[in-house]
């Protein structure tokens, strides 16, 4: 039996970040991981010999630079390389690309629509304005608008002022942006279907919503608000795969004297008299600490690892009804070489270096969602396909490649029951076939495929329904509503128990902000000096 100052359940990136800041404050911390590898959904796994698979999350931009810098992640092996560009393959044999260079990007949009090429200026300005607004609140705790505590009121005023600074006209635009659908939002800027389609993907990645669902414009931000070295909206590859992020965070934990233990799955959170005592592991071992932080999603934390009687009735009900829906699947593919894409010109910089999508109309995007609503995978899915090995030489043997296909939509269950193996094959096939339509040699290059339905993700790393954000990013589950109204400040309704996963503000993506924010609140409660860095501020 061991005693710690704090136990963090789950060595995902948020758990590790949380543990690192607690350890930095001098606490004796252990971070427990059920699997025999750490990282949760930010991992690099050798699932095929000599290949590293970023088999869950696959790109990096949201990771807060404040955390990166403060925990000196570069010293623990993290290196993020920006990559640019994307391409949308079209049914008519053409393509629509976006390039890193603004002039090339403009020229390419203009090839499809002159209007849209120029409209892009205003689109990116307006969207950037929204990003700037939200970015300032990523490393802050969401204030409770129903509270009269000075801390909440101060934060509310800050929030209010930030909005007021926008001025009247932009305030209205913000109000609309936060509530409208990504399709309607794009309609206000662009005319060409393929252009809108290309931008719409970011509005639905990881959600159980379609491009026409109100609220999806906001989801754009969750894909735009990141940055690589101050270039907001740019994405990057973590050298060595996403596991490098987790490994570097674990390195930071250990450097501050914390412990990271794998193969230590938590069975139960021990509560006595409304106070957390520690955790009981699956192997029967008990570990005690006055502070327990859960990096698991809220459903898993409160419904699986706790007794209903230890929780307030309303809270329990809200957690039960918390929307955390499996809507995305993943295919990880080892390739014998770089596939060819006949639609692209020979030697195009896009090959391998761009996000590839094989869908070209808003109608197809929405139809993909209708399949999901019917309880099945999209027969004509939206795939976000990257080949990180084209940029990162450490992923595969030279000349070989690793392809990551994020697939939207893919339900946690088929029509309310478990997936059969035929259905898994059907899902795999619909993805591979769609890509093959644009790459004739693709199938022949495949050495190994790992298919991950939401159910697989849940089974392996524990996220309920494999939801990449640990909960839908809808208005009723954002900011002070996340995860549960009244419990949006990382504290669970049991003394000493905290939440630090993506179910909490500001939500999912490999951001590490929830972990850091939770650490700040814990240290506040323990009356210890805050070790969590402040927002850089965008000025």
């Amino acid at each position, binding site marked *: 039996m061991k005693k710690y100052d704090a136990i963090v359940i789950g060595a995902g990136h948020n758990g590790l970040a949380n543990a690192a800041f607690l350890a930095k404050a001098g606490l004796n911390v252990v971070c427990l991981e059920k699997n025999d590898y750490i990282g949760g959904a930010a991992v690099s796994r050798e699932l095929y010999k000599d290949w590293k698979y970023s088999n869950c999350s696959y790109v990096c931009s949201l990771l807060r630079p404040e955390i990166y810098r403060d925990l000196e992640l570069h010293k623990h092996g993290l290196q993020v390389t920006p990559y640019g560009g994307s391409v949308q393959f079209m049914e008519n044999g053409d*393509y629509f690309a976006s390039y890193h260079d603004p002039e090339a990007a403009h*020229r390419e949009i203009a090839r499809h629509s002159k209007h849209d090429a120029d409209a892009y*200026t205003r689109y990116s300005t307006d969207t*950037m304005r929204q990003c*700037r607004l939200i970015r300032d609140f990523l490393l802050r705790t969401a204030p409770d608008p129903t509270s009269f505590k000075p801390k909440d009121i101060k934060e509310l005023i800050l929030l209010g002022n930030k909005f007021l*600074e926008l*001025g009247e006209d*932009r305030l209205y635009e913000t109000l609309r942006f936060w509530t409208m659908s990504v399709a309607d939002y794009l309609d206000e800027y662009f005319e060409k279907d393929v252009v809108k389609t290309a931008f719409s993907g970011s509005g639905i990645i990881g959600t159980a919503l379609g491009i026409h669902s109100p609220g999806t414009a906001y989801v754009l931000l969750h894909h735009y608000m990141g940055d690589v070295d101050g270039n907001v909206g740019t994405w990057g590859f973590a050298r060595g795969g996403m596991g490098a992020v987790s490994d570097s965070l674990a390195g930071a934990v250990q450097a501050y004297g914390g412990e990271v233990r794998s193969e230590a799955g938590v069975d139960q959170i021990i509560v006595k008299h409304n106070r957390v005592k520690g955790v009981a592991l699956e192997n029967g071992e008990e570990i005690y600490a006055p502070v327990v932080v859960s990096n698991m999603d809220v459903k898993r934390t409160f419904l699986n690892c706790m007794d209903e009687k230890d929780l307030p009735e309303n809270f329990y009900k809200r957690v039960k009804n918390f929307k955390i829906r499996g809507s995305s699947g993943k295919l990880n593919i080892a390739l014998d070489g770089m596939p060819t894409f006949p639609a692209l*010109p020979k030697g195009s910089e896009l090959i391998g270096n761009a996000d590839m999508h094989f869908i070209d109309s808003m109608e197809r995007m929405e139809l993909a969602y209708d399949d999901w609503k019917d309880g099945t995978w999209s027969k004509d899915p939206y795939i976000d396909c990257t080949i990180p090995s084209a940029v990162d030489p450490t992923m595969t043997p030279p000349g070989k490649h690793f392809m990551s296909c994020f697939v939207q939509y893919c339900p946690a269950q088929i029509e309310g029951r478990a997936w059969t193996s035929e259905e898994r094959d059907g899902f795999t096939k619909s993805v591979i076939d769609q890509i093959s339509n644009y790459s004739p040699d693709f199938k022949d290059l495949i050495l190994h495929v790992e298919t991950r339905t939401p159910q697989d993700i849940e089974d392996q790393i524990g996220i309920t329904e494999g939801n990449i954000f640990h909960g839908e990013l809808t208005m009723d589950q954002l900011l002070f509503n996340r995860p549960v109204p009244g419990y949006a400040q990382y504290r669970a309704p049991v003394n000493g128990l905290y939440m630090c996963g993506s179910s909490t503000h500001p939500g999912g993506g490999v951001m590490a902000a929830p972990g850091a924010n939770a650490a700040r609140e814990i240290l506040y409660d323990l009356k210890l000096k805050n070790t969590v860095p402040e927002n850089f501020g965008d000025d």
Partner: protein
Amino acid sequence: MTPVKINTGRLRTPFYPRLAELDCLNTWHNWAGYSSPEALYCEDMEYFAIRNSTGVFDITPMTKYRITGPDALDYLNRLVTRDMRKIKPGRVAYAIWCDDQGQVIDDGTIFHLREGEYRLCSQERHFAWLTTAAIGFDVSIKEETVEIAALAVQGPTSYSVLKNMAIDGLDALKPFGLMHHQIFDTELMISRTGFTGDLGYELWIDPDKAIDLWDALFEAGKLHGIKAIGTHALDLARKEAGYLAPFEDFLPAETTVRTGRTRSPLEIGMEWLVDFNKDNFNGRRALLKEKAEGSNWRLVKLDIEGNKTADHSFIYSQEKNNSEEIGFITSATWSPICKQNIALGTVRTPYGKPGDNVWVEVYYQREMHWNRVMAKATVVDKPFWFPPRRGATPPAPF
């Protein structure tokens, strides 16, 4: 289908082969996707070509739109702040256009080519705004940037150079006038416009005839000191003329993220371009309100004492008390022709009235070491450089 390949590098204008031949410095930069020379052989000499003989600058990358249709005039009149009804065929208008909040989107020139046919020319691209503005008008807007090659021919001998090309009617061409001339089996458009504040012309032609035009022009200018020039020389000349550059002296509203960083025409000294007698134009209501309530900012032309260039300097209302910071410099240079230390800047109202004195904090470097001075500056009303030859019609053969 064969894969479409777009040029993902820099484009070259039709004059590029000639510019490349003359280029000794290999300093090119991006202008709207085109390679444009910063300087070709010597920045200083290129500048003096503008003021002393003739400088030729390739302005092909300027964004150009052709606006036609029965409502073309009404459309433009709603678009820009000045009254376009006063711009007759054969005339050119410098104009500014705003959004509904009265914030400047861009400035540019509008050429009334023929009755009901216009060309709008600007630095930035505005096709989306222009088409949105066309809702409810019977008008056609066509981008024609690549269809027209253009040269600015600027300087005191520019008239003589063109005269040598046997262009009839050049004598009568007034500032902001335009004329057409048949040459190389095509139509050459000549406008008496420019960005240097000096006597000068701009020539507009079919890109296929661009090289012919260049060669004829340089042949005609051989004895008049004609020189090709780069952006740096032009930029110096425009500051002396008090002309504004977007992204330096004002920000196009559509590209501005932060609230309060845009400017209204009244705030950048362009009130003379705003005609409130028109029934309706973009920004009218907001500008009327601003006029009644007062502007926040004022653009100032500064004559700064001493000779230390005031790039990026803060402006103060007093010499000693730094808390009275009232604005900053947006463009600055030493003027070789006026022998003045000049700058454009933006200050908060009520500061910066013509004749006022302000203080500019200048940092300058000499042999690695940085120094700081507070230099007194006077707000001036008129352009720093406004030679009589600029307006003379017919111009004298200098």
